């Protein structure tokens, strides 16, 4: 058996700028008839710059960086959602990711139905989901609302349900993006326990967060990202120190 690993070698990621340029006839006509001073040129966004990184089995890695530094881009690249524009990416192991928790709910369907939908999205079988259903409902603490449509839920309830579903199965590689910090204090405690348990099952964890205390308690290694480039890689304490120095310095 080959052990699980994540390996990036000189990885670049560009977002195609054409995707957000407006190309409608209306805007074309408007720009020909109105004299504009100077249009700001939109070029491709260089989201990740020359990142080389090796994560071995058993490592718990924390990602630090300002908003927009490239933490989420890096996680989604590892998950295989974004195509890299240069370098080499090698990931071995089954990936479980928790990115945007509220995405992918069907508002008109009940909570129970949504457990099924989301489970299927994650590649589970209907049988397996049925087994896990009660446990998920109990953990999410939704009560009798589970048979009401999702659109009647409060934001916190939605996040709790999504979290409960997504964390009900373990994988080899766990990618988390800012998910801790959802829900009330009571749920936070439960969530932390759940994640700790998941981390024990999974072989690799990569966590992006701004919450130093959870980073300290969950991770051993820290990586600091700034403007798409990796500026620090080392122990978690040193990484936090480096990040705090960056915040103070700039």
């Amino acid at each position: 058996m080959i052990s699980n690993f994540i390996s990036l070698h000189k990885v670049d990621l560009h977002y195609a700028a054409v995707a957000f340029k407006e190309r409608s006839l209306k805007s074309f006509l408007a720009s020909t008839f109105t004299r504009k001073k100077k249009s700001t040129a939109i070029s491709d966004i260089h989201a990740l710059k020359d990142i080389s990184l090796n994560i071995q089995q058993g490592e718990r890695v924390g990602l630090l960086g300002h908003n927009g530094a490239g933490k989420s881009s890096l996680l989604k690249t590892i998950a295989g959602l974004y195509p890299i524009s240069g370098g080499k990416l090698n990931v071995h192991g089954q990936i479980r990711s928790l990115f945007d928790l509220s995405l992918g709910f069907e508002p008109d369907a009940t909570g129970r139905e949504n457990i099924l939908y989301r489970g299927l999205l994650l590649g589970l079988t209907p049988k397996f989901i049925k087994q896990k259903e009660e446990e998920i409902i109990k953990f999410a603490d939704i009560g009798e609302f589970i048979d009401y449509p999702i659109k009647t839920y409060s934001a916190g309830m939605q996040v709790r349900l999504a979290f409960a579903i997504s964390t009900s199965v373990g994988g080899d590689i766990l990618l988390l993006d800012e998910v801790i910090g959802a829900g009330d204090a009571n749920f936070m405690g439960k969530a932390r326990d759940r994640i700790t348990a998941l981390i024990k099952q999974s072989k690799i964890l990569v966590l992006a967060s701004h919450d130093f205390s959870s980073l300290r308690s969950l991770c051993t290694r820290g990586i600091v990202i700034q403007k798409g480039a990796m500026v620090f890689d080392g122990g978690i304490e040193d990484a936090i120190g480096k990040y705090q120095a960056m915040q103070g310095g700039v």
Partner: protein
Amino acid sequence: MYNYLEGIWDARYFWTHLALSDLRSRWRRSFFGIFWSFLQPLGMTLLISFVFSRLFHTDITRYAPYILSGILMWDFLIFNIAGGALSFVQADAYIRQYKHPLAIYTLRNIITGLIVLVMGMIGLVLWVLVVMPENFGLCWIAVLLVFPILVLMVWPLATLMAYIGTRFRDLAPALTLIMQAFWFASPVYFEAKMFREGGLSKLVDYNPIYHLLQIVRAPLLQGEWPTLENYSFCIATGVLFFILTAWVGLTAEKRVIFYL
């Protein structure tokens, strides 16, 4: 390629669920529900054949099933091809979260469309049995082949439209127009002999839509086996679309997420 198809198979619970939930939500809170799949084409057929049979001086009882078969197939094509252009855009919440092969999001429409088509076909068969019972025979088995052929022809094309339609959002409205043009140029409601009499035989002989329709019409409406030409034309078109889509997908598949 093999891995890709394997990924589609692995996600089978997910896309069958999507297709069924589409059907459910389509008929949610409606009294007739799924029976609209019968009623809608039947009603349309009655309306159209009433007018056309007078216009063209044809026998309404024989002409109506012809129209019905045209409506059923055409609805399937429009739903999948014109609707396919936006199928990735509609599935963006899923695409952003989990890496499934994108072709499952067009397959979802194909499955929904096939279920509606089968319902309508049952109506067509019953109608023909009453009006033209003399056509019934062994050759009716041939009609069943239309379903795999439809999948082969339409699934790759819908996926191709989805790749392009995600990047160029003008495609979806443009396709409605293009499909309308194909409708006029094909014997969907009009009889093939009208095209031939008008000196437009080529629009029939080289038209995959005609051959596709013949697979249903030859057995049910004429009591004959479809010709080998009908089948080979459809399969060749399907293979062509498949190769084209696979080629475009090589680069487009990964980049779709940027354009959502």
